[in-house]
Every structure is written in structure tokens, then in C-alpha cells.
């Protein structure tokens, strides 16, 4: 230890956080700042832009309904995914929390396993379920219920399905963490005061688990709205979301200023929802959910 420093000297703290801080500054903050500047650059031709400042990119985004359509579709798909996740995810979370059998840790472990399996693989594995030669179509054909394969893959439904598959563990874990923090004697108290179990759930358990549910909804919404791989693999061209639009603008058309503009738009829109959330719920629930 350097002489003259106190035991918990702030200077030592700064030395400890320096690597992470530098990384955050140079790989997170600075890129977003530069990207904001880039939105005012002039697009010349594919891959070439000029530092002449212009509002053309913003003007194009604000006036072209092509972009608005993408934005609304992305928000709609994100919201639908988050809500279905919330409804479907609450049941398992509640079940794991309330179940009393010995091996319920196994149910929790099974929830964490998908986090270890490559996201790309989990996504394309849906092709084996929904595709023309997938489980559903082959079974229905064999049973004679249909005569030609149903078109399930490459639809918006398939995209939402893939997003649900990716996001449900997040939702379940968030709700579960929130349920775990409930003092169970409160429910016993409600029951002893004459509440039915349904009543006790509505009046005690559900309200106390809302923070986890809300954190899960926000997380699912943001992750779904920012997704790129799922629409790419499970959707048709018309099911592309904002992330795909950004990728195509930059990697396909090489229109960097417009790509930067679209990225900032997505960042601001999703940040807006996150800000509303933290305004009312604070950050702590999300921290709990992410830390597992």
C-alpha cells in the first residue's frame, strides 16, 4: 500500500475500477457520443461520408413513413412478446416458489440451462419444430389432419415464438426473485384472517411480486425490441425489426450516417421506456434479476 493512504482510500478505489471504467468510457460512452455526431454527417455514397454537418438524416427519418412503420412494428412485437412472457412466465415462477417437493432446485436449474445454450442454436432449433419438415407438420401430415404443410415458419408468429423462447427464463427468474423476497407469514396471516387462497394471492402475493414482474416486462420488451438474430432466422423479409434495419443500413447499404441515426433512435426510444420504469420502480429490481 502506498504511504500516507488511508485504509479505504478513494485513490485505491479508482485504481481498482480503472480498467472497467476505461472500457466503459471507450467502448460504451464514447461510441454512443461519436454515433450522435455521425447522425449529422452527410452521406455521399456507399461507405463514404463527409463531415459536413446536415440535418438530412434526421429529416429523412422523421418524414419517411417507411421508418415509422419499422419503429411501430418493432414496438408492437416487443410489447406483445413482453406481455405474453409476463402471463406465461408468472405461472412457473409461482409454481417453483410455492411448491414444496424436495427437488425444486432442479426446476430452477432447468431455467438456467437455456442461458448456457447458444442463442443462435436455440433460435434455429425452432425450424425443426415449425418448418415444413418440422415436428408439427410431419405429425399433422401423418395423422392426415392436413394435406400440405402449414406455413408456420417465416411469419411474425414464429418470430414472437422465438423471442418468447429466448426471454421466458429472464421473466421467470425475475418474478421468482421477487416472490422469494416475500415474507411468507404475510400470506399465512391473510389466510388466518379469513382470506381464501385466491383472495390472499390477489391481495398479498400478486402486489408484492409486481416489482419483479415489471422488471421482467421491461427487460423482455427492451431485449425483444433490440433483437436481430430472431427475425433474421425465423421471419420473412417483412418480419424484419428495427435491429435488422440498422444492420442492413450499415452492413448492406454502407450508409453509416443513416445507420447511426437509426441506432440513436432505437437507443432513445428504448431508453425512454427504461427511464419511465426507473422513475417509478428504481434500478434495484433489475440488478437483482440480472445477478440471478
Amino acid at each position: 500500500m502506498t504511504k500516507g493512504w488511508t485504509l479505504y482510500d478513494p485513490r485505491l478505489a479508482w485504481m481498482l475500477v480503472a480498467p472497467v471504467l476505461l472500457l466503459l468510457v471507450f467502448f460504451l460512452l464514447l461510441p454512443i457520443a461519436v454515433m450522435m455526431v455521425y447522425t449529422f454527417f452527410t452521406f455521399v455514397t456507399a461507405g463514404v461520408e463527409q463531415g459536413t454537418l446536415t440535418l438530412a438524416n434526421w429529416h429523412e427519418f422523421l418524414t419517411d413513413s417507411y421508418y415509422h412503420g419499422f419503429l411501430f412494428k418493432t414496438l408492437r412485437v416487443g410489447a406483445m412478446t413482453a406481455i405474453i412472457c409476463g402471463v406465461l412466465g408468472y405461472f412457473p415462477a409461482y409454481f417453483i416458489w410455492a411448491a414444496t417437493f424436495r427437488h425444486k432446485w432442479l426446476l430452477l436449474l432447468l431455467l438456467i440451462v437455456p442461458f448456457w445454450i447458444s442463442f443462435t442454436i436455440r433460435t434455429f432449433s425452432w425450424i425443426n419444430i415449425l418448418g415444413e419438415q418440422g415436428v408439427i407438420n410431419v405429425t399433422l401430415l401423418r395423422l392426415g389432419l392436413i394435406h400440405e404443410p402449414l406455413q408456420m415458419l417465416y411469419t411474425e408468429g414464429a418470430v414472437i415464438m422465438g423471442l418468447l423462447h429466448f426471454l421466458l427464463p429472464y421473466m421467470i427468474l425475475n418474478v421468482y426473485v421477487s416472490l422469494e423476497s416475500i415474507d411468507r407469514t404475510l400470506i399465512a396471516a391473510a389466510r388466518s384472517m379469513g382470506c381464501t387462497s385466491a383472495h390472499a394471492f390477489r391481495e398479498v402475493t400478486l402486489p408484492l411480486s409486481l416489482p419483479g414482474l415489471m422488471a421482467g416486462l421491461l427487460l423482455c420488451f427492451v431485449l425483444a425490441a433490440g433483437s436481430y438474430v430472431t427475425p433474421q432466422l425465423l421471419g420473412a423479409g417483412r418480419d424484419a425489426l428495427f435491429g435488422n434495419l440498422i444492420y442492413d443500413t450499415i452492413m448492406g447499404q454502407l450508409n453509416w450516417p443513416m445507420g447511426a441515426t437509426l441506432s440513436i433512435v432505437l437507443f432513445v426510444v428504448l431508453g425512454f421506456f427504461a427511464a419511465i420504469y426507473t422513475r417509478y420502480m428504481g434500478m434495484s429490481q433489475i440488478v437483482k434479476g440480472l445477478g440471478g
Partner: protein
Amino acid sequence: MTARQGDREGRWAWRLTGFVTLLVYIFMFAPIVATIVLSFNSSMFGGFPMTGFSLQWYGKLLANEQVMAAFRTSMWIALVTAAVTTAIGVATAFALVRFDFHGKQMLSTLVILPALVPETILGVGLLVLIKAVDQPRTLLILVLGHILLAVPYVVLIVQARMVGVRRVYEEAALSLGASRFAAFREITLPLLVPAVVAGALLAFTISFDNTSASLFWRPAGVETMPTQILSMLKISISPEINALGTVMILVTVGIPLVGGIILQSLTRLRRRGEPKEETQ
């Protein structure tokens, strides 16, 4: 409503909960099981029905030089990412838990941002920055990017554990003349082992799995495992991809599971060695 009626209602609600839970678990695992089953299908087409058992797709996979190269690249990137992220993440968590300094609150918010900002935005941002300063995309940048993506998780996991490790242990070591680093290495770190291992494993998986951001950051001509799978999927879904998926599942599920089991038996061994160890 009589209590009896309410209980019957509760029983039905409980059954419904169990049923939906079962459905959700089936939903979670059916596609994965289908992929593993199909990887052993002898059919030429990557789909049902099963026409026979075959390991030929695994053989094809081993002979596919592109896939093997992508696998090696991803392994190296993930190993480096896990090592570096764990080191700097533990240091940051230590500072955030033990120290008081100006901007601590802001830093702890900032550090979880990479987990909340969509990857596409992180991807584009870094790419624009690199372009603005006229630098080429390199493996170093890709690795540093992966570290950025993994840092929030490592810091959160280690932080959560560190809160439970009382600082008097370190301070006792310090008062007995241990250096700052020795106290950390001999006292704090051993108590943190479960969180450190969990963090390192998660960092490894995050890097090994990363797709969207890697598509932006990878140097020209370099494929990681997920980007390789994506480009293979552009052509068609072949049984080879199912085999590849199965291998990946074994690697990414197997490593943490084995790690966890080793960790548990280690703690058990140590417990046996020191039967009077005080429980936290």
C-alpha cells in the same frame, strides 16, 4: 363465498399453475430435444421423419475445416474474455463494495448498462467509433467488446457475494501485517471462489454465444462459432447444423455443469478437512 368453495377454487388454480408450468418447460426444451434427435438422423434433409440412426453428420462436421477454425477462434476469444473480465470485474466489485468514493453510485449504474443497451446499438456504436478514428477491425477489438458485454454480469455476481463477506477478516489480516494484496489473495478471494467461478463461466458463455455484436465487430474473414452457424443457415438447414448444434450444447452446458460439480465436491472436501468451520 364459503371457505370450502374458496379452497376448491384454490386447488383448481394450483392445478392450472402446474399445468402451465409443465407446458412452459416443454416449450423451453422441445426444440432443443428435436435438434439433438435430428442430429442422429441418417436422412439427407435436416428434418423429420427419422429414417435411421447415423453418426455421419458428426464425421462431416469434424472434416469441415471452416467449422473447426470458427470453433477454435470462439474458444480462444471466450477463454481470454473470461479471464480478463473476471480479473477486472472482481477488482471493480471489490471497490464498489468496500470503498466509498465520489461517483460510486454513478459507476455502479454505468457498469450494468452494457447488459441493458441492445447489442445492435453497442455494435454499431463501436464500429462507428473505429471508422471515425480510421482503425481496422481487429481481434483485440472483438475481445474487448466481448469483455464489455460480460462485465456487468461478473460485477453483479461478485458484488452480491462480496456483500456477505465481512471486511473484518481482511482487516484482521492487515492488522497482523499482511500486505493489501496478500490479504485479498489469502482471505477475500478464497471466500469469493463460488462467485468468481460462476462469473468466469458466465463470461465464457456470453462470449462464446455472442452473435449480434460479433457480426459487427469481427475482422474481415474471421468467423466465430455463432456467425459461422448463421452463414451456414443462410444456405439451408442441414443435418450437419443439427450435429453442430448438439456439440455446442454439450460444450456450453457440459462445462458449467462439470465446473459446478467440481466446485461442490471441492467445498465438501474442504468442509471435511475443517469440520469446525463457522458457517456464514
